C-alpha cells in the first residue's frame, strides 16, 4: 500500500504539493509514482526564476528503464530546484515526501490552488487504478 500523507495535496499525474509557511509550495512525486518508476538514476529539476503554468513539464525523473516528465501542479515562479538530486537521485525513492522534493514555486495567485486532490481523493484514485 502506498504512503499518502494526509497533510499534502495531490494531482492525478502523481505529484504532491506542500504549502510552506511563507506561502511558497513544494512539489514532488508520490510514493506510488517513485515505486512505479523503480530505481531513479537521473533527475532534472528546473532552475529558479522560471515561470511555470499548471500542467507544464517542469522536471524529468529517469529510472534505469525510462524517462518520465513531472508536470507542475501549480502556476507561478520557480524559486529553486532541489540541488541534492543531481548527485543523489535515489533520494526520491527513499524519501519522496521529504528530502526528495523536486522544486519550490511561488504561486501566481497567492494561496488558492485549484484542481488539486485531497489525500482521501488521491487514495481513492490509486485504488481505482489497481
Amino acid at each position, binding site marked *: 500500500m502506498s504512503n499518502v500523507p494526509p497533510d499534502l495535496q495531490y494531482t492525478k499525474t502523481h505529484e504532491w504539493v506542500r504549502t510552506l509557511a511563507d506561502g511558497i509550495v513544494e512539489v514532488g512525486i508520490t510514493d506510488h509514482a517513485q515505486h512505479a518508476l*523503480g*530505481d531513479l*538514476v*537521473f533527475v*532534472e529539476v528546473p532552475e529558479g526564476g522560471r515561470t511555470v503554468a499548471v500542467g507544464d513539464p517542469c522536471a*524529468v525523473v*529517469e*529510472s*534505469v*528503464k*525510462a*524517462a518520465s516528465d513531472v508536470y507542475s501542479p501549480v502556476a507561478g515562479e520557480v524559486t529553486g530546484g532541489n540541488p541534492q538530486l*543531481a548527485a543523489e537521485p535515489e533520494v526520491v525513492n527513499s524519501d519522496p515526501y521529504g528530502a526528495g522534493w523536486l522544486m519550490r514555486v511561488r504561486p501566481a495567485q497567492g494561496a488558492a490552488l485549484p484542481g488539486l486532490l485531497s489525500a482521501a481523493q488521491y487514495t481513492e484514485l490509486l485504488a481505482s487504478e489497481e
Partner: protein
Amino acid sequence: MGRRTPLFELHRELGARIVDFGGWDMPVQYTSQLNEHHAVRRTAGIFDVSHMCVVDLKGVKVRAFLQKLLANDVGKLRLPGKALYSCMLKESGGVLDDLIVYFLTESWLRVVVNAGTRDKDLAWIRAHADAFGVAVTERADLAMLAVQGPQAREQVSRLLRRDGAQAALELKTFFGREVDGWFIARTGYTGEDGFEIMLPAGEAAGVWRKLNAAGVVSCGLGARDTLRLEAGMNLYGNDMDESTDPLESGLAWTLALEPPDRRFIGRDALESVLAQGSARKLVGLLLEDRGVLRSHQKVSIPGGGTGEITSGTFSPTLERSIAFARVPATTGERVQVDIRGKLLNARVVKPPFVRFGKVLVDLSEKS
C-alpha cells in the same frame, strides 16, 4: 494476455512486475533493477529465459543445411557440445535474427532463437530445411534458465549429483552438455561467467526456489538488458533487424567469409557491401555530460552527419550513461546527442564496457 512461461506463477508469487516482451508476459524486475544487476556482477542471479525458442534440427545433412542458413560457419564446430553465435540473414543481407547453435552430434544440432522472432524464424528454418531432409522440432517441453555471475557455476553444481557437478564445472566457455537430464551450457548474455540450463518445464520452479534459498537473486529482463549492454552484446530489434546488415551492426566478427565457396544466404549482398565499404557503423558511446542515453535519440557528428542511438541506458556498474549508436563510418571520437533539445557530449568507445565485473572503458574526462 500474452504467452506465459512455465515459471509465470512463480514470478507472480515472488512479487515480480510483469510486462509484455515480444508477446510474452515476463518479469521485468522483482525488487530493484539496480540490485538485480549488481547481484549478477558480484555474486549470482537467475533469469527466466524460457520465452526463447529452442529448436532441434536433425538429419544427416544438418551441417550442410546450417552452412547454407547461417552467416557464421558451423563447420567450425568439431567438438561435441561446442556453441557458436551467428546471424541468420535474408538474401538482402538484413538480419532475420541472431542465435546460438550447439553442435550435439553429426546429425543433431540445436539452435536457440529470440522470442519475438520465433514465428518468422521457424517458418524460415522450415522452408529451407526440406531441401536438406532436416527435421525441425520446437522444444516447447523445455524451460530455460540463465544463472549468471561469478558464483553461478558453483551454485548450479551444488544441485547436481557428484559426477554431474564435476562434468558441469569442467565445461569450457561456450560448451554445453547433457547432465542428469538437463542440457547445461557455459553461455550467457551478461558478460559474466555462468550457465544457461535447458531442463524439463516441470522442474524449473523447484530449481529456481533452491537457487533462491542458496542466495541466488531473482533477476528480471530489466537487469538482463543493462547487463547485456554493458557487456557489449547486441539486442535483436534494437541494434539490428531486417533493415540492417551485420557489417553496420558491429557483427562483422560473426561472419565467416572463408571458405569463399560457402554460399550462405545473404552472402552475395554482403560481398557487394564489402566491395564498397559500409556507410555506417555501430559504436559504443559513453555520455560525458549528465543525463541518460535512450534508443532513438539523435546523434550529431562534428563536421556534419547524423546517427541514432539503438540501445541506451544508465550503466549501474559505471554509474554513467552508455549506449550503442549507428553513425556514419567516418565518425571519430567525439559526438553530441540530442536529449530533450540539449546537445550533450559523448565519447565513442569500443565495447564491451564491462566484462567479468571489471570496467573496460576509460571513464576519465577527456577534452
